Structures are given as structure tokens and as C-alpha cells.
């Protein structure tokens, strides 16, 4: 009997990509994709789409009908159809329903849950680098991070009740890629970036390709010498400061006092330009960095993109900002060129290597 993989959240970009990727694997017989909405693009031939609202018990029937042995739960997300209340319900109640169904599925062998490094919160009084075992001092008080923390709690409960199922929780840093649609990528597409005055948070990213790869490894049998069950932080190596991100994107920043930033975020949210939630303000104020030693050494995966590389790939797909780095470097290069060359008659400045086309 081959493998049957159930993937939740296939109507989203990451879910659709993962379903397509896993269906190409030779060990997989069937991929069942479920979501409350139709996928925005056609799932490949090895995938079967079933429209199910995770908040209803119908998911149990889907699992039983297809004799699913691996569940990859990707629905836990910051955004989704409906308002914040609906998103929270899908995240928390949806996970409870899914876990309930999983508990009644004797054939289930493996459960992979997508979580977020947001469960560590963002606070000034916490350690600079979070390991998987650290308890944050300020637990997330609301929003997606709190949903994820609750989901992880239910998953731990499930792991206790079904010790025969291999359970993996992957805490992803902010996922970026050329076609990202997360709240943070929406923020970075604003023409001018509002920031918190006197704070320059450390941010970490994981490239979409790496995220797909890690999910794939977690859904399969562990490779020799590695363990793919447990809780792992997933992030690209290295750190970028928010100011660095803005400069690399060529977007000017407007530092605002924290209360003013809250007001601006409210306006942006109301205008539906970007999902600028209070927890995102906390992230953009205090930042968050996680330790990926466990991912490297125990899980046995080194992300192909470091944080700066992942961000560069995202930035390349963005429209140019108001202050593109090329134009700024053209000025400094030109001045530097002047210092070391004799200006020809007529003051036509010396050669520069600045991109001129």
C-alpha cells in the first residue's frame, strides 16, 4: 500500500505548490488537497481536490475514504477569507476538527503542522535568539501568533494520545519568494515604509523553495542519521535589519512614534492596502531571530537561501522603490571615480562603473 497524503490549505500559494511538489514524488500514490475555497490554479493530475470546510466534521470522512496515512496541515495562516474572527476559527477550530479526525484514523502514520516563529512573540525582554525549547516571557496576546500557539498546544495533546503517529511541528520564519502574499510582503510593497522610531528590528526570512523542501522532508520517511519528528525552527541563516531591507528594496522609511505607527497601521488596515496587524507592529518594533541549529543538525536540512538571499529574491520581483539602490550608488560611484581620475577638459566626469542603462 503506497502513501496517501492529505494537504490542507491547497487554495493558497504555498499549499498548491506543496501539493504539486509532493504529487511528483515516486513514493506517493495520491495527494488529496482540501480547502474551503477552490484553488486559484489547477492542481496537477496526481492530486484530487476535495472542497471541505475544516471547521465541519466532514474532514473525518475524507480521511477515512482515501485511507490517508500522512496529513500535512498548512491551513494555519494569518490571513484568509472573512475577517479575523473567521481566520481564528479556521486556525483553531479547524485544527481541532482535523486532529479529532486524525485520532479516529487508525491508518495515520505521520502529521506535519505548519506553525510560525511568531509563537515566540516579539518583546524587548526576551533572549536575542530563540531556541525551540525556550519559553518566551511575553506570550503572544492575540492574533495569528496566539492561534499558532494554541494550535501547537492541541498538536502536543494529539501527539500524547496517538504516540504511534510521528508528529512534526515546523515553526517557519516569514516566508518570502517571488510570488509571496503574506502580511509582511504586503508591508514591503508599500511605497513608503512606516517604521517605529528608535527601533531597528532584526528580521529573518525563509525562502518559499526551502519551505516546500522542508515540508517535503517532514512528510516523508526520515533520512538515515536524521530525525524529522519534533518541533523545528525553520529560517534562513543570517539576519537582516528592517533598515537594511528598506534600503535593499529602495523604499524610503518614515520613522514614527509607536502610537502614531499604530494609527497608521489602522488606516492601512482599514483601507485594505496591507494587513498591518498589532502583532506585525510588534515584530517591526522588536524583531525576532530563531536558532536553526536543530534544523541543521537533527532534521538534517540547511536552507539553500540565507535570509539576505531569500530577501534579494523577493526584492527582485518587486517593483522599484522611490530610492533604487542603483541610483544612489551611481552618485557615490561617480564621486569616487572623480577622486581617482583626471577630469578631462570640459569637466566630463571620469569613468564610473555605475550602471548607466
Amino acid at each position, binding site marked *: 500500500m503506497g502513501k496517501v497524503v492529505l494537504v490542507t490549505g491547497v487554495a493558497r500559494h504555498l499549499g498548491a505548490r506543496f501539493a504539486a511538489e509532493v504529487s511528483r514524488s515516486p513514493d506517493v500514490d495520491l495527494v488529496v488537497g482540501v480547502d474551503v475555497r477552490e484553488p486559484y490554479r489547477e492542481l496537477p493530475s496526481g492530486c484530487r481536490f476535495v472542497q471541505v470546510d475544516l471547521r465541519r466534521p466532514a474532514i473525518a470522512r475524507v480521511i477515512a475514504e482515501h485511507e490517508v496515512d500522512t496529513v500535512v496541515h498548512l491551513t494555519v495562516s494569518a490571513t484568509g477569507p472573512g475577517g479575523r474572527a473567521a481566520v481564528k476559527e479556521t486556525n483553531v477550530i479547524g485544527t481541532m476538527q482535523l486532529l479529532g479526525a486524525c485520532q479516529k484514523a487508525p491508518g495515520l502514520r505521520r502529521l506535519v503542522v505548519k506553525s510560525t516563529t511568531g509563537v515566540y512573540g516579539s518583546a524587548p525582554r526576551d533572549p*536575542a535568539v530563540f531556541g525551540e525549547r525556550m519559553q518566551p516571557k511575553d506570550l503572544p496576546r492575540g492574533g495569528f501568533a496566539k492561534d499558532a500557539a494554541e494550535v501547537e498546544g492541541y498538536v502536543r495533546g494529539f501527539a500524547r494520545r496517538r504516540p504511534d503517529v510521528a508528529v512534526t511541528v515546523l515553526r517557519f520564519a516569514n516566508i518570502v519568494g517571488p510570488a509571496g502574499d503574506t502580511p509582511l510582503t504586503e508591508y514591503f510593497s508599500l511605497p513608503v515604509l512606516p517604521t517605529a*522610531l528608535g527601533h531597528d528590528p532584526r528580521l529573518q526570512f525563509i525562502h518559499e523553495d526551502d519551505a516546500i523542501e522542508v515540508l517535503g522532508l517532514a512528510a516523508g520517511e526520515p533520512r538515515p542519521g536524521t530525525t524529522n519528528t519534533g518541533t523545528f525552527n525553520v529560517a534562513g541563516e*543570517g539576519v537582516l535589519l528592517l533598515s537594511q531591507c528598506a534600503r*535593499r528594496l529602495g523604499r524610503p522609511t518614515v520613522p514614527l512614534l509607536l502610537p502614531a505607527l499604530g494609527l497608521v497601521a489602522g488606516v492601512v488596515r482599514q483601507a485594505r492596502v496591507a494587513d498591518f496587524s498589532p502583532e506585525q507592529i510588534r515584530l517591526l518594533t522588536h524583531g525576532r531571530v530563531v536558532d536553526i541549529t536543530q534544523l541543521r543538525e537533527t532534521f538534517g536540512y540547511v536552507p539553500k537561501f540565507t535570509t539576505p538571499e531569500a530577501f534579494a529574491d523577493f526584492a527582485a520581483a518587486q517593483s522599484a522603490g522611490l530610492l533604487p*539602490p542603483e541610483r544612489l550608488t551611481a552618485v557615490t560611484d561617480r564621486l*569616487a571615480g572623480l577622486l581617482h581620475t583626471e577630469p578631462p577638459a570640459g569637466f566630463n566626469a571620469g569613468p564610473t562603473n555605475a550602471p548607466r542603462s
Partner: protein
Amino acid sequence: MTAAREYARGEAKVIPIESAPSWHGDRSPDAAERFADRVAEAVGGALAGKLGPAATRAFGKDWEDRAANGLAFLRRRITGDYEVDEFGFDRELTEEVFLSLLRPLAEKYFRVEVRGIENIPTEGGVLIVANHSGTIPLDALMTQVAIHDHHPARRHLRMLAADLVFVLPVVNELARKAGHTLACNEDAQALLERGEVVGVWPEGFKGIGKPFAERYKLQRFGRGGFVASALRARVPIVPCSIVGAEETYPMIGNAKTLARLLGLPYVPITPTFPWLGPLGAVPLPTKWTIQFGEPIATDSHPPEAADDPMLVFNLTDQVRETIQHTLYKLLVQRRSVFF
């Protein structure tokens, strides 16, 4: 002969300018670039003409090199093309800006005399434990400058700072970029295991905010968390005694009510502050001595020793006594507070 010609004839050197990091597609030259051209031509013209020799006279012979370095620095900064570590330490900014700003204070104003720098190993993790004083943590900043400037390997001190530092806007940003982090076991251990020089001032606010009458009397050394971190990471502890910082702001009183209102541990009253306003915030120009003592090895103990409270307390006391004795010795040797 103009400065530019001089350069072209003799030591013509082309600074490598790699093509600009291209995060966006190509663009046609537009208004901004034409403006840049005009600025560049004007500056170039001025330098080729009368300004060149004038600049050489005013800024010294190698001004062009320094200007080129400055431009290269500026270029990296404005495009975000620099690295920070996981703790937010921006090495380039620290070396080029922060330390350059603090250096005159250390060398000219406090005339810091550094002794025993050879007690800090050239590589590998080490924990520097020092006495704290002077109402604002100038002593910590001066130690950072001293270690970087006097140590042959030009090592950077990574300080463990109070959580207040990371709550305050601006201060938290500067502290992170200068390589400091929160004083907690996780961060201390992570830095020590990465082989960094970690500095800790275990007296904390009790030490830095103590009244002038209690100068050079070491306060309680916390709960010995720093010793446990060093034991776990198996790195040596170097005791450090700082003389001179106590008298920079002699604290004769504490505005407790105001401190509580502002959420600060203390608001100092000194003979000059707040009476002279901002002028009162100028530190007194005392003469400083920073003495690094013999390293205390911890690798003879197994890593589990960190969980042995008796050993941790004994080591804490040993470090504390060493610093206290060195302080008394340095004070006896000192001729005057200001010279």
C-alpha cells in the same frame, strides 16, 4: 599641479567598484541621474581647479584615499550592503562610527590607562567581569574601546546589558548595533559558545547608581548567573577593575519620586546636575585606569558544575574579591582623581 593629477601620475590606484547590487531591472537615465551627473561634474571641476591643492593643504596628503573610503562606506550603507550578526551587531558601523566617536573620550578626556590586556586571550570565548559605577554606563563603553584599541587581535566586547536598555527607543537600536545584548543566561551562553569576548557588570543598577559615599565598594554580584554561564561554556573569567568612573558623576542624591514616575531605577543628583542644566551632564574629566586581572579558568570543572550552587557561589566570591582587592591597590597607587 592638482591633487587629481598628482594621483594620476604617481600611485594611480583604481578602487574596485563592483557593479551596483541589482535588485531591480534596468532603468533609463532620468532626472535624478542627470542631477547626479551635474553634481559630479561640478565637484570634479572644482577639484581639478583651485579646490584640489586647497583640499590637499586642508585635509592632508591622503585626503583622496580617505574620501574614497568614506564614499565606499557610504555606498554600502545607503544600499544596505552590509552584514549584521544574529544579535544585531553591525561590525562596520561599530568600527567606523561608534568607536571613532568614543575614542577621543577614552584617549583625550579620561586618558584611560589599560593594564593587563594580555590576560584576554587572542581567540575563543572569555567572560570579562567588571565593577560598575558612574550613574551612566560610560565605564562599559570605555572598556569596549579599550579592548578593541589595545588588544592585538582588536577584539570586540559584547556586553550584557540591563533590560531597560532594550526597552528604551533609540538606545536599544544603538546597543544592538554596537554588539550588546540582554543580560540573560541564553544570550550569554550563546555568545560565549560562539567564542566572543563577553562583558558583564554583575552589580547592575546597585553598582552604577550607588551614592558617592560608597564609591569603590563592590555591591552584591547578582545571583552568580554569569559564573554559571562561563562554567557551562567552559571559558575563562577575566576580572576587570575600573578606577576613575566613580568620580565622573558623583551622585549625592537620588530623585526617587521622579525616577518612579519615569520608570527609571534612579535619577541622579550630582553637584552639577540638574543645577547647571545640560552643562551639568558633562562628566568630570577624571583619570581612568582599567586593569584586567589574571584569568580564572573554569575548564577544570565539568559542564554540570554550573548546577552546583556551592561552586558557583565560591567562584563568584573569588571574582568579586579579586576585583575589590585590585581596586584598593589601584586607588593606593593613584596620585589624584584628575591626573
